Each structure stands twice: as C-alpha cells, then as structure tokens.
C-alpha cells in the first residue's frame, strides 16, 4: 500500500442512485499523484457517473472522497474546479459560438480576479490581467497544437481540434487532476497516436490524469493503473496487464456485453503501444474494450 500522502484522489465507498437504478455501488479507489489512471468498463458501468460525482455535477448518495487532502461529500462544481479538478466531456461541450481563444480564456476565469468594476474602470491591474490571459490562452493553444485556429469559432473546428481545445480549456484552470472522458472517441489512428503523445506530455508536466477510454491499446500503453467498473461496482484494479488477465474482467466483457468489445481489439495496425506492454497480444485481450 502506498502512503496516503501520495494519493491525490481517494474515493471511499461512493454510492450514487438514480431512482431504483444503482449507478455506483460502494466504489473505493485511489489515484497516485503523477499517475495516468485508467477507468474502463462496459457501457453503463458508471464511469461517467463517477466523473460527474468527483467534478461536483452530481451529488453522491453515500460515501465520500478526498482530493488533495481535503474531504468532500457535497460540493459545488466551481469549488472543485478551484481545488484543482478539471475535466472534458464524452460529448464535447465547448462554448460553440466563442472562438478557440475565448474558450480557453473562460478556462482562465478561475485563476483571474478582475470584476466588473475593474473592467469598467480599465485600471492597470485589469489591463495587465487581460493581457496575461490572452498570452496564456495562446500558449495553451500552441501546447495542444492548434494555434492556427485561435480566431475560429469552436463549432467550426474539426472534431480532433475540438477535443484538443477542450483539453486546453481544462488545462487553463491549472488542474492537479485532469479527468478525460473518452478523449480518443471518434479519432482515427493517427489522431490517437498524437493524443497519446499529448497526454504523456501533460503527465510529464506534473498533472495527474484520470482517463475513461474504450481504446484498449491506448489504456494499456498509457496507464500506470487501471480500474474496471461493471454495473456500478469496481470489479478489478491494478496494473494494466494484471487487470487484463483478471477472470472477473474477462467475464464482465464477454458475459453478454459484446457490443462494444471489438473497439480496442481490432485496431492493431499501428506500432506496439510501449515497452511496458510489449507482451501484449491482441487475442489475450479479446473482448476487453
């Protein structure tokens, strides 16, 4: 076991129900600082619900979680963002009618101060802050590799660019934990490889990443630890290769939930993920998606 101080996020017996449906049942897990932590499971397993709970969009029904040493049971989203949790959405939620640059500038809201009086009086502090906000937003556009698109309205960006913009906007809040909900969904192989490089760059900068993903190769190649959810319960947790061999995981994926299974297992045309999973064979992960 790792010492608790190394745990950035720790969930303890988290439960969430919608009417009679149990979306999360007694889920406990912890994420180490600096890790990339993968969250996988069949559709409807509760992955996105877990995201919504730790970002404050849903209030949990039982249990609680600790983030950066602070305990939470009920908390407003903007306060969790303040504490250092940022996320992206499975279905991209950009500010469609604002430019790429402006989207990121909204992300700076949390780390800037100027109120309406400062804006109206245009004092030196307000002007300096606005300049710094523009500057930082441009740097982030550059960081995720879409600097050419800064004046383009978000809704006119390509799908891959929108995903990158959403990540840049989340980074603008200066998070400790970046939670990404299926960032590779809908991306082609080349875009996925580029995304993987971007995520590694983000982790190298000291930001912990929580990743929901169906692309098994991406998960196996990136994650330090993986948890598997099924019907709202955590059925396995550990290093990727352990989890992949776990009988409960294989059962969960093969036991009638075959619809999304081929996702990760059919796209092995590109180079092997990384040394850490050199022994990874597609057929061994059959059904794990």
């Amino acid at each position, binding site marked *: 076991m790792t010492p608790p101080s190394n745990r950035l996020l720790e969930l303890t017996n988290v439960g969430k129900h919608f009417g009679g449906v149990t979306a999360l049942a007694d889920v406990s897990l912890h994420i180490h600082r600096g890790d990339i932590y993968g969250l996988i499971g069949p559709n409807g397993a509760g992955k996105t619900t877990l995201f919504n709970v730790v970002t404050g969009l849903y209030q949990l029904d039982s249990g609680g979680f600790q983030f950066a040493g602070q305990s939470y049971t009920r908390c407003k989203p903007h306060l969790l963002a303040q504490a250092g949790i940022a*996320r992206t959405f499975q279905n991209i939620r950009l500010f469609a009618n604002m430019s790429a640059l402006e989207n990121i500038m909204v992300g700076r809201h949390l*780390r800037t101060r100027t109120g*309406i009086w400062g804006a109206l009086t245009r004092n030196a502090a307000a002007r300096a802050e606005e300049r710094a906000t523009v500057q930082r937003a441009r740097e982030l556009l550059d960081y995720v590799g879409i600097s050419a698109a800064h004046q383009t309205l978000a809704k006119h960006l390509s799908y891959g660019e929108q995903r990158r913009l959403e990540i840049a906007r989340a980074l603008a809040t200066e998070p400790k934990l970046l939670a990404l909900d299926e960032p590779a969904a809908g991306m082609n192989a080349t875009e996925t490889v580029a995304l993987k490089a971007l995520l590694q760059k983000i982790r190298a900068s000291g930001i912990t990443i929580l990743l929901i993903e169906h692309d098994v190769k991406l998960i196996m190649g990136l994650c330090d630890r993986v948890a598997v959810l099924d019907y709202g319960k955590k059925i396995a947790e550990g290093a990727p290769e352990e989890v992949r061999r776990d009988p409960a995981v294989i059962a969960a994926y093969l036991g009638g939930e075959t619809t999304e299974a081929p996702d990760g297992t059919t796209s092995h045309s590109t180079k092997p993920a990384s040394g850490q999973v050199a022994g990874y064979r597609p057929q061994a992960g059959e059904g794990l998606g």
Partner: protein
Amino acid sequence: MDIFFQQIINGLVQGSVYALVALGYTMVYGILGLINFAHGEVVMIGAMIALTALQALLAAAFAPVLAVLFSLMIAMAVCMALGYSIERIAYRPLRHAPRLAPLITAIGVSIVLQNLAMMIWGREYHSFTLPFTSTSHHLGGAVMNDVQIGIVIVALVIMAGLMWLVHHTRTGRAMRAVAENPAAATLMGVDINRVISVTFMLGSALAAIAGFMVSANYGIVHYYMGFMLGLKAFTAAVLGGIGNLRGAMLGGVLLGLIESLGAGYIGDLTGGFLGSHYQDVFAFFVLIAVLVFRPSGLLGEKLAERA
C-alpha cells in the same frame, strides 16, 4: 416630407429607450431562458426614484447638472439592488421548476411592484421636469431638442459599452459561457449564481437609465408607465431575436421607427378614420407577425444550441 423626418427622429428617440429596456429582457433570457416580465416595472421604479431624488437634490440646492447626474446614479443603484433582490427572492427558488412557474411569478412580481409604487407615489401623474431648458434645433423641417439628442447619444454610448463588456472582459466571457453551456462554464470555475446576479443588475441599471430617459422626454411619470413600455421592449427583443444582444438593439430601434411612422401616417392611410393614438397597435402587430413568420427573430438563431 417634414412629417417623415420628424417621425424618423421621434422613432429613433423612442427606439433608443426600447433598445435599452429590450437588452434587459434579452440578457436574462439568454442566460436563464426566462422572460422577466417584471422588467418594465423596474424601469418605472427607476423613473420614480429619479424623480424623487431629483426633487430632493434640487431642494437641497444642488447645481442642476449635478442634481440630474446624481439622481440618475441613485436610480441606477436602487434598480440594481431591486433587480438583484427580484432574482434572489422570486426566481432563484424556482430555478429548477417547470418553466411556467417562474413566468407566472414574474407577472406576480410585476403586479407587486406596481402596487408598491402606487402606495408610495400615489395614483396621480407626476410631472418630471429637468432643471434646465431644453433648446429645440431645427434640422430641415424637423425639430429635435437637447433632451432627445442626449437620449440618443447616451443610449449609443451605453450600448457600445455593454457590447464591449460582454465581448472583451472576464465578466462578459463568463456571461456568454453560462448562456452557451452552464455545466461546462461551472467546471471552468464560473459561479453561475454570481453571473446571474450580475446579469440582473446590469439589466436593471439599463432599465433605470431608460426610465430616466422616457420621463425626461415626456415630462410625466406614473406608477403604470412600466407596463406598456415593458411589453413594447419585450416585443423589440422578440423582433430582434430574443437572447441576442445585437438583436435587442436592432429590434428596439426598428420598433421605435415602425411605431412612429405608423402613428404619423395612419391618419392619412385610413382617411382620418384611425388617429395617431392607435400607435400601440403597430407594436403588437409586429409581435404577432414575428411570432407567426419568424419566431426566432431577425438575428436569432434556431433554438438548438441550448444544452
């Protein structure tokens, strides 16, 4: 042609007032999806406060210009507090209620404010006279006085300022972000309740300015004045495309012009059968026509992007 130019001027003056009030409707709608039918009453309260403050300041021997300026500022401050309170007390508890509930509440707030004003200021018309003479200027065959010139200029400056605020400041970006996608905005650390409060206060400040303008232009204040003005401004917001700031300004000016030209020519067109007192008909004719033929308004987008 003299009548034509005169009516254009009258329309621009009235349209400037409609535009300022319509902005209040459209900002609140853009962020909450709520028609704040009490907004017209905020205009009326602004006019009443300005009247009382102006009289008190003049009685206290303030210089006329300062008295006008201070009374306007007092009216704005009171209306901002009023707008903030209306949202906190009447609308926030109903944030997640079915849409009909806040709508009916808005009508209720409107009635409460009217009656409150009647109790404070009485049922009679009050004359509202500025403490300096307003000279008339002849432009061709048409006449425009200082007050009217002031109304148009102040309205233009305020609208330009608002557009700048919304598009180039942190507060404005937060407002647009909440209007586009509240869930994403809150994850960026935007406090939605704060943005909503700021929106109500901004709209109410504009309402106070508009209230001062109509009072100065017509020289009369009355506890019922906000009702019709509010409906007209709402019409202007719908005409431009509710939720769209540029639309509210365009709709306000257009409605002012339509009304004014309609009133100027209705007598000629009907052979004297209908007089200029039918001018209100035009606004509501426009409202019906927009709702039937172009419900999204002139600059409105189709209602698809609300999350």
